[in-house]
């Protein structure tokens, strides 16, 4: 046996190992991040990365922009196959899916319980990333909802800003019919194959598809029932322009086809992307459901950052998230004014950016509105099967349009869902 070769090899292996250790200690790796939405998450992550590299010049970032579905599918495939080296160091996960990943891939994500001060974050965000006493992930944006509307269209139909305050869904539909008759524009775009609006309405009523213990809450769910009935009325009374798919809906909004949009605060960037529509938009609280305990505040989407346990740059990634997302208040002011990101770091909520009037909305202090509504959002348990339930709801919704009694539709949703959630 050639001992000198063995010796050489072990020495070089040891040296490489030592070099690797040193590099980790000095944080000189490349942190790869997967996220979606170039105008929002990607742009914000780039800003965060720039801030971190300014202080730690050895760290570089590789921020990869995928479609949301692609991020989720690539992540799920990588985790399932065990090929962890194909995965990034940091990944963005939508809140609805957080528990699904944590529970079905135990050990895949780094527990950050002792590394990040979670007391500074909104509790509902921390709760949904907690599993068996361990907290995973760094809370990011909130999806607090608002109703953005075209002032010019509503004025044409004879409505003032004061008419848009304290709306109920009944009133909203009434106004919508009027706007359609007088201006020819539908009040909103609606893709009934997407459960978004139902989820917004249901959560504003303080309920979700599941009880707190994770069991199904369908047939006895007054908020879901009211949400289904309301959406059916919106369709049947011609208030909505029916669209198919996300881009179709966004197109209806940016092209000036529809008079309002009801979405999470993260849509602000898209609304403001049409510079020629400046001054034509205004913001108000979402309409209330006609049930007890209904609020005019809800949530749609929202997401958080997670670090992969197998990541080679794990410590660096955690340090980065901790330094920027958990501490840098100035960063939150900047992403709020530039991107419309309402973060869930509580201390960032009092900054002056929140009081700043927005010219696009004719000087309305929109951010203050969102900050006010955020605290009113009813906390619900998203559970682990939101996608399954969404599918069950959208699959059975057309029956409601055709006149099937709502209780039968709820029963159908429940029986479909029961088969899916095992």
């Amino acid at each position: 046996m050639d001992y000198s070769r063995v010796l050489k090899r072990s020495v070089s292996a040891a040296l490489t190992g030592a070099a690797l250790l040193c590099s980790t200690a000095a944080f000189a790796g490349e942190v790869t991040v997967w996220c979606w939405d170039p105008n929002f998450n990607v742009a914000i992550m780039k800003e965060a990365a720039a801030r971190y590299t300014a202080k730690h010049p050895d760290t570089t970032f590789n921020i990869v922009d995928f479609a949301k579905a692609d991020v989720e599918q690539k992540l799920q495939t990588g985790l399932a196959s065990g090929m962890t080296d194909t995965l990034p160091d940091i990944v963005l996960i939508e809140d609805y899916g957080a528990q699904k990943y944590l529970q079905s891939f135990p050990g895949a994500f780094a527990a950050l319980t002792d590394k990040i001060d979670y007391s500074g974050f909104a509790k509902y965000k921390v709760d949904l990333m907690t599993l068996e006493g361990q907290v995973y992930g760094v809370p990011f944006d909130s999806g607090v909802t608002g109703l953005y509307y075209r002032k010019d269209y509503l004025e044409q139909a004879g409505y003032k800003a004061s008419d848009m305050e304290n709306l109920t869904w009944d009133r909203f539909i009434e106004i919508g019919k009027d706007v359609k008759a007088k201006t020819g524009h539908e009040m909103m775009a609606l893709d009934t194959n997407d459960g978004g609006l139902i989820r917004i309405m249901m959560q504003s009523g303080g309920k979700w598809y599941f009880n707190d213990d994770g069991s199904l809450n369908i047939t006895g769910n007054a908020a879901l029932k009211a949400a289904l009935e309301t959406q059916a009325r919106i369709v049947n009374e011609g208030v909505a322009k029916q669209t198919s798919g996300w881009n179709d809906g966004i197109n209806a909004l940016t092209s000036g086809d529809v008079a309002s949009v009801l979405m999470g605060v993260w849509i602000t960037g898209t609304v403001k992307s049409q510079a020629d529509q400046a001054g034509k938009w205004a913001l108000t609280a979402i309409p209330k459901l006609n049930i007890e305990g209904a609020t005019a505040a809800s949530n749609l989407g929202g997401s958080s950052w997670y670090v992969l346990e197998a990541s080679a740059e794990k410590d660096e990634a955690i340090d980065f998230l901790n330094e920027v997302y958990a501490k840098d208040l100035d960063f939150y002011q900047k992403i709020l004014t530039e991107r419309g990101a309402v973060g869930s770091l509580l201390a960032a909520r009092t900054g002056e950016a929140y009081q700043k009037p927005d010219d696009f909305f004719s000087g309305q202090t929109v951010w203050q509105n969102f900050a006010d509504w955020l605290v009113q959002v009813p906390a619900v348990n998203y559970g682990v099967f939101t996608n399954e339930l969404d599918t069950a709801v959208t699959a059975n919704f057309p029956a409601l349009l055709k006149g099937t009694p709502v209780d039968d539709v709820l029963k159908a949703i429940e029986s479909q869902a029961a088969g899916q959630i095992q």
Partner: protein
Amino acid sequence: MATTSRSSLKRYFDVNGWLFVAPAVALISLFMIYPIIRSLILSFYSGRGMMLKFSGSGNLVRLWNDPVFWKALENTVIFFIVQVPIMITMALILAAMLNNPKLRYSGLFRTMIFLPCVSSLVAYSILFKSMFSLDGVVNNTLLAMGIIGEPIGWLTDPFWAKVLIIIAITWRWTGYNMIFYLAALQNIDRSIYEAAKIDGVPSWGRFAFLTIPMLKPVILFTTITSTIGTLQLFDEVYNFTEGKGGPADSTLTLSLYIYNLTFRFMPSFGYAATVSYVIVLMVAVLSFLQFYAARERA
């Protein structure tokens, strides 16, 4: 007789022959046989994500009681029953027409009809989506021509969404099947037709009693490949409906359901494997039936 069997036995024990096929066998075992066996084993496990437990026939019970599975199966069968005959007939007729030696620019027409199946899947899906949207060019044209009174919800109505998928796959794959028929038609001796013509057989008769019987093997082949293709239908539905199979699950196919079970829902790898074996079973049974039917008449 004895010598042949001895020589074939000798060949059987010849190491060199085995060595030649060994690399192929190894690759096939690794990339086909192993996954097939592994997925069969997987179909007896259930659980969330990687937390799999042996569940025996649990997945079969779940399958039996799963309304979404039955809906996906129903949709898949509808697509297959409606779309395959339409496409095969159209391909046959087009091939017969384009095979006419008197036709001018036949090369151009053939290319035009064949082109859809080599076009980019995503590009054509996006184009179809915009053409068939509520205020898209198709609805506007039909409205302008007075054929319909109000726009059709191609992407929002459960019935029309199915029709749209059928239109799309027919558009894409008819030309592909036509090429097989054209190739087969070129091999038919023209003198047969001339003889039939002299005997006074009209052109539809020549098509029905000469062309179709002579194309039978090719028709069988295209029917089986189209059947398999339609049973595995995924791309169009995924691209048209953003992976949801909507509206109201009306375009959900078995393949899309498998995909959703694996990637969109709480990952149920075992159950997804069970559903995929349903497709395997259907392909096997239908192919067998088609072979059987064709053989009997021959």
